[in-house]
């Protein structure tokens, strides 16, 4: 496992940070989060064209850059820090990874280049209104009809589901679980933007009424690639979360250094210093777990499933605890809409349960470790 970043990776990180600071200040986040789509196609494509981020972990054979999960983790950590409003987790992390894991050679050649290029925004529709994160929750049905399939059912919590060009759908058929692809504007597909707690990451409810769909990969063969996609996505989300947690921690420290009460900087009170020290520990430990998970994903370590769950649980707890502390340190102003803390607080809360809450991941880890 890799416990440090190379000089090139560090440089990549600082370039990204500068770029996001410049292109996605909080004013931009606030403007985009107020829109229904939640991101701006032209702006995102411009930004992506300069950095090639949507191609980062997609293999070169399919138009990608062929980097690994460590580099993807760096991108996500910096996006989480900036709270960048873009369909990146939906398209690059979830959909592209699912296609890489499940698709046939021909399907990968067909689907991945435009996702890598950023011209096609894809998403993965797997969860349903029952809110379960494993395959037991999949009730959407696929019925074969002359070489093609028809989907019926409801998918929920679909990231950028109302704006995606391509939807990868997990559904149950006679042969078992399969992946399908459906164009975003397919007849019979009704897409409704959900009212979400975290307005910087939009979600949709997708209702499939006899929607024509193409099979992705083997019929009835989605269990393994889906499980693998969820594990890799958990590792990715953990990295995104520690980026947000680090940003909050720094903002809490900056505020404490500015604020004066009782004639002294509140940063000089021991209760504040100790809280900040504890916050540093929370965030650094979670970072270590997230980096370990990215590294394990990059090396396809046999222990990756457990490490990814560990990292997701650690990041969820640390991000939320940091968000709670950051509001507390800001005092009354931290509870206002004008203060930026709530934007990250809401991302922390939403990410805490997305892809499985900490208790669920801890149980998964225990099972994987045969306890």
């Amino acid at each position, binding site marked *: 496992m890799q416990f*440090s970043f190379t000089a090139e990776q560090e440089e990549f990180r600082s370039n990204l940070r500068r770029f996001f600071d410049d292109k996605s200040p909080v004013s931009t986040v606030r403007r985009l989060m107020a829109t229904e789509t939640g991101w701006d196609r032209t702006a995102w494509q411009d930004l992506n064209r300069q950095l090639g981020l949507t191609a980062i972990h997609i293999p070169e054979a399919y138009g990608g850059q062929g980097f690994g999960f460590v580099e993807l983790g760096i991108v996500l950590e910096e996006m989480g820090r900036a709270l960048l409003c873009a369909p990146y987790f939906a398209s690059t992390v979830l959909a592209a990874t699912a296609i890489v894991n499940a698709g046939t050679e021909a399907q990968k050649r067909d689907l991945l280049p435009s996702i890598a290029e950023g011209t096609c925004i894809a998403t993965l529709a797997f969860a349903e209104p029952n809110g379960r994160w494993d395959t037991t929750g999949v009730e959407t049905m696929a019925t074969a009809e002359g070489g093609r399939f028809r989907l019926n059912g409801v998918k929920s919590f679909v990231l950028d589901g109302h704006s995606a060009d391509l939807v990868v759908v997990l559904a149950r058929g006679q042969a078992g679980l399969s992946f399908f692809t459906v164009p975003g504007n397919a007849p019979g597909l009704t897409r409704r933007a959900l009212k979400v707690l975290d307005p910087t990451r939009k979600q949709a409810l997708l209702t499939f009424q006899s929607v024509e769909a193409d099979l992705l990969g083997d019929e009835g063969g989605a269990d393994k690639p889906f499980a693998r996609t969820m594990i890799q996505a958990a590792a990715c989300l953990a990295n995104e979360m520690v980026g947000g947690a680090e940003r909050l921690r720094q903002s809490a420290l900056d505020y404490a250094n500015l604020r004066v009460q009782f004639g002294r900087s509140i940063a000089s009170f021991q209760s504040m*210093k100790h809280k900040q*020290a504890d916050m540093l*520990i929370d965030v650094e*430990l979670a970072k*270590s777990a997230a980096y370990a998970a990215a590294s394990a994903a990059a090396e396809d370590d046999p222990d990756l499933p457990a490490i990814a769950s560990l990292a997701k649980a*650690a990041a969820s707890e640390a991000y939320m605890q940091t968000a709670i502390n950051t509001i507390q340190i800001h005092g009354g102003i931290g509870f206002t809409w004008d203060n930026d803390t709530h934007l990250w607080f809401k991302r922390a809360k939403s990410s805490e349960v997305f892809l499985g809450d900490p208790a669920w991941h801890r149980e998964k*880890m*225990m099972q994987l470790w045969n*306890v």
Partner: protein
Amino acid sequence: MSEMTEASVRAAVRVWLEANWTVDSGLIEWRNKLIDSGWGVPAWPEAWYGKALPAGLTAVVDEEFQRVGAVGVAKAGIRRLAAATLLAHGTQAQKQQFLRRSLSGEDTWCQLFSEPGSGSDLAGATTKAERKGNRWVVNGQKVWTTSAHHADWGLLLARTDFDVPKHQGLSYFIINMHQSGVDVHPLRQMNGHASFNQVFLTEAEVLPEHLVLDVGRGWAVATTTLMHERREADGVRAWGTASNRPGRIYDEERAENATVMEPYKWYPQRAGRVDLVIERAKAAGVNADPVIRQEIAKLLVLAKSAEWTARRARAAQMQGRPQGPEGSIGKLASSHVARAAARVHTSIAGADVMLMGEDGPMNGLIAEILISVPAGSIAGGTDEIQRNIISERVLEMPKEPRSDNDRPFRDVPKNLV
């Protein structure tokens, strides 16, 4: 060495070990040979038994020693701290007298810093050293002194001036522990062990040439010792395991280790014994209990994250990069792990928590964990002091307002005892 690459260092150590390493050697004889070769302390300067190897390359030397099972210089106990401190601040004569014998293990050391009235506030020491004729004469009391009962020498922090601010009135001495003015009493802890001592100094004498650095600059020297102590804090447990291979030198090393490591034998329990949790849960038949499963999982998440954080810190160090915050939080993270482990062991053991010795789980080992863990968040800098250090040095937050360093030490409020 003219060029120092990983490959050239590895090759050179290998050649030297092949020509010199033998298990039939006596321990001291071997270590003296090792000290002469420069491979015993390769990061040290060439003038003093080293090879001036950059920090990033010393691990290569360790690896080669481990590969053939070669014994290193004496590392365990306070002598390594004494050696590092004297290398940094000692006079030529002090280095001549003490460095070799500390590395070889012939001299053993103890650290006379803490006092009953100054724990976290070490610079508040009131043990007094006065110049009388051709001697320094020391009076006072030290505490928490590991291995004082068999140490040859002590690293002594004492006050030589009560009329200047506290940090300026301290001096650092090397004191001979074998004299009538030094009285060592074991200190019994709440877990029943007596790993530390109280040391009473009554008209104890120190030779003038055993003052380290200058009068009044003792705090700077003590800081060096403490820095090395903190850096090596994690190493104690590793040094505790001598090789179990056959051979004369291993026999001698095991005997040395048994003495030096005796005070540390409960330290693994102090750290919480996370390694035992899963087997204990299975043995107690509670591993299917969902509440206990969550508790165990939380502990494992914490322990693994702490372990990976330590590895991040080490990786940065190996690359010769400045340590990030990950390097400063290890001690505090270990306290959290130990406390969480004690809670989990409690949940698993249930009513048996009330029993110890042969009546307790694992022949008393679990009880020893529960009554040893409180030491971890105190020894070597309390959790509160660690938080101060992190907030002031890493996060650069303002220091506490103080009322002790702007006036003569004599006028600073002190403990009554």
